[in-house]
């Protein structure tokens, strides 16, 4: 394997040009650096497009505003889903894959040409998907359940995009192989790279499943296949659609560890526990896509229960472990830094003014409390009937992919800008506020959508006043209030998101250059001489973590309480069996 690789990439090796990072001592391949930059920029552009569409959707759902006409609402809703859930997130993830492989391992990037091919395919796919949606004949929503049919361009664009992403994932694997062969690091790969590796492995599974379902669907849309069974489609599509969310979870958790390490010098409490929790994602998380089919006919209860839980919720356990070890490692680091008073001095004196840290910690808390707990409740066989396809569902996943993943990526950007783009962030005072604006906005969106969902408001619904319908029905007044508040918080998140885009683009274009000799304003508790083994696990058995114990205690109590409240609601429904 190494021989083949060395043969194929020999010339690239000679061409690879490195620079040495003045802050971390890491050797950075300039090709990898350029690819990180272009992927990050593409991500931000798609975030802008998808974010604007999302804001329009939220303003239409606000009954008092009701901005868009029905056809534009459904069109924008489809566009919002693919632009932010696929394109923004995946472009950013490609940047993270190159960062965690080539940069963190001091290695040259494997086959940069294939990485560029992947990037071009992804851009072509992204642009084509927007073309398909804006044509107006592909308002089939992100899920595109047949027999509802989009234009062939829609399915083709997703296939091209997925192939491009697969190229990037292969470059990531290739870089790991080269790094090992050329001994650019000692021992095992770092935890953050390990997390990215789990994401990459899940990505392969995801793309293959996507091909299995999207290729026949494309052939169906051009008339070569007569029929796509809707339940078959839904089952396989979710093995792709849900697995792709597990890529996000893995990358986002890797980013939590990375930011805690970069900003506070945090070390994992134990590498064994954190890595095993990542492994659980590979083994259990992406297979659990059955929870999207809990309210469907034709599947047995045994199948549903087994596949959502694998008998003991091992994937949920993986996330619960990270939810404890990340704050635990931060507490341990802060206590070593001298913040030892009481249970929470470490948290009070944390660098809340640093947008990277603030965004990361908000992402951790919001993902756990909002996205995590609601996800388990939603994925419980019987409880699903209470909220299946109601506004509760987008409420849940805005808690995971917006307040969780997107916020984590934004936080990471505040480190990528100085370290990779080598620019000082413009308007640092505004940057300080950005994660709070976006995080609280996203949290509000999630909570109020979930609230409206429990009152029965359906998702993907243009008009909850039902004025066009033959018979009238009034949703409760509280539902109207919640959809209005959803709009208010969407404005707030939109403001935070817009600020993020302005800060990022502004920094890339106008930020003070950090690669010249006289400027060195950054202080990181970083090691010099990247790739050396420097971590000692000072925490195991020595540092006490009362703050973290209290935090996870509060989390667990909320989880149990909310779980049983929903069973109480369920028991009051009409009887059905």
């Amino acid at each position, binding site marked *: 394997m190494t021989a083949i690789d060395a043969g194929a990439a020999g010339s690239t090796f000679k061409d690879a040009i490195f620079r040495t990072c003045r802050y971390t001592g890491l050797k950075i391949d300039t090709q990898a650096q350029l690819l990180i930059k272009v992927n990050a920029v593409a991500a931000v552009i798609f975030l802008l497009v998808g974010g604007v569409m999302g804001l329009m959707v939220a303003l239409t759902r606000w009954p008092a505003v009701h901005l868009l006409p029905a056809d534009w609402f459904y069109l924008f809703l489809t566009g919002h889903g693919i632009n932010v859930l696929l394109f923004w997130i995946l472009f950013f993830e490609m940047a993270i894959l190159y960062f965690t492989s080539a940069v963190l391992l001091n290695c040259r990037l494997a086959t940069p040409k294939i990485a560029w091919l992947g990037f071009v395919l992804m851009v072509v796919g992204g642009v084509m998907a927007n073309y398909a949606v804006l044509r107006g004949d592909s308002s089939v929503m992100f899920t595109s359940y047949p027999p509802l049919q989009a234009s062939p361009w829609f399915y083709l664009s997703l296939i091209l995009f997925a192939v491009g992403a697969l190229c990037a994932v292969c470059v990531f694997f290739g870089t790991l192989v080269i790094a090992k062969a050329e001994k650019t690091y000692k021992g095992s790969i770092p935890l953050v790279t390990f997390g990215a590796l789990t994401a990459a492995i899940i990505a392969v599974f995801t793309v293959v499943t996507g091909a299995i379902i999207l290729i026949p669907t494309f052939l169906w849309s051009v008339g070569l296949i007569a029929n796509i069974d809707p339940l078959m489609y839904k089952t396989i599509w979710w093995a792709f659609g849900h697995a792709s969310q597990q890529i996000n979870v893995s990358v986002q958790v890797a980013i939590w560890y990375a930011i805690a390490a970069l900003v506070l010098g945090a070390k994992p409490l134990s590498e064994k526990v954190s890595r095993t929790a990542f492994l659980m994602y590979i083994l259990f998380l992406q297979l659990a896509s059955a929870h999207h089919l809990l309210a469907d006919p034709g599947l047995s209860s045994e199948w549903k229960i087994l596949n959502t839980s694998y*008998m003991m919720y091992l994937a949920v356990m993986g996330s619960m472990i990270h939810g404890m070890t990340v704050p635990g490692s931060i507490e341990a680091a802060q206590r070593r830094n001298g913040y030892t008073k009481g249970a929470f001095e470490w948290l009070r004196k944390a660098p809340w003014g640093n947008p990277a840290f603030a965004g990361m910690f908000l992402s951790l808390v919001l993902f756990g409390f909002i996205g995590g707990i609601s996800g388990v409740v939603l994925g419980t066989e019987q409880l699903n009937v209470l909220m299946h396809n109601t506004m509760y569902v987008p409420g849940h996943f805005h808690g995971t992919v917006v307040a969780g993943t997107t916020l984590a990526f934004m936080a990471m950007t505040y480190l990528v800008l100085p370290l990779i783009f080598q620019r000082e962030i413009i308007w640092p005072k505004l940057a300080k506020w950005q994660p709070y604006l976006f995080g609280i906005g996203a949290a509000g969106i999630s909570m109020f959508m979930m609230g409206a969902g429990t009152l029965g408001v359906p998702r993907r619904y243009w008009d909850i006043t039902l004025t066009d319908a033959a018979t009238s029905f009034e949703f409760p007044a509280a539902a109207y209030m919640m959809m209005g508040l959803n709009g208010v918080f969407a404005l707030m998140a939109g403001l935070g998101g817009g600020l993020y885009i302005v800060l990022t683009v502004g920094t890339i274009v106008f930020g003070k250059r950090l690669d010249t000799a006289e400027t060195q304003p950054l202080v990181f508790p970083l090691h010099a001489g990247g790739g050396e083994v420097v971590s000692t696990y000072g925490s195991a058995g020595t540092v006490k973590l009362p703050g973290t114990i209290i935090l996870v205690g509060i989390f667990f109590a909320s989880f149990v309480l909310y779980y049983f409240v929903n069973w109480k609601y369920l028991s009051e*429904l009409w009887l059905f069996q």
Partner: protein
Amino acid sequence: MAISPPEQRIWWNEPIHKVELGWIVIAFLWGLFMFFFMIAWHFIGNQNLSNETYRIQPTAYEEKVEAFAEQYQVGEEDGVPVVRPPAGADVYILARTYEWWPILELKKGQSYRIHLSSADLAHGFSLQPVNINISVQPGYEHVFTLTPTETGEFTIVCNEYCGIGHHTMIGTIRVTE
């Protein structure tokens, strides 16, 4: 640090922090509990979605619904038949863009065998304000036993996107003493 290689190449041999171990045990036991509670609800609970499903051609299902409506029809509203099936009867509901057909009149406390399928696209049966939500797929006839526990007029909205008129897809179930 998490961004540099671990101290020991074989990280599996590392010690585990006591707090971590405690939390792992709690998370594991809670996971086990949640798994068994889903199973338990099939025995102690009254809200479990039935597994009974048949494959059927959408046209054949439409014919069954029409025959059912004709058999128990008691009236008509805006061209839609009002149907009052006897307690325990097989009751057919048809989802089609953009309506739930026909209008049903049921009795509180009586059980009915509800059949649910679609004539065209995927739809979402969402009974409001009760908030029972079930997916409806064309080609699959889902059968479950439903017992209303309250009286009044209830609305079925569609909560699976089915096209431009999705938000106008409304049906009615009336429940009397």
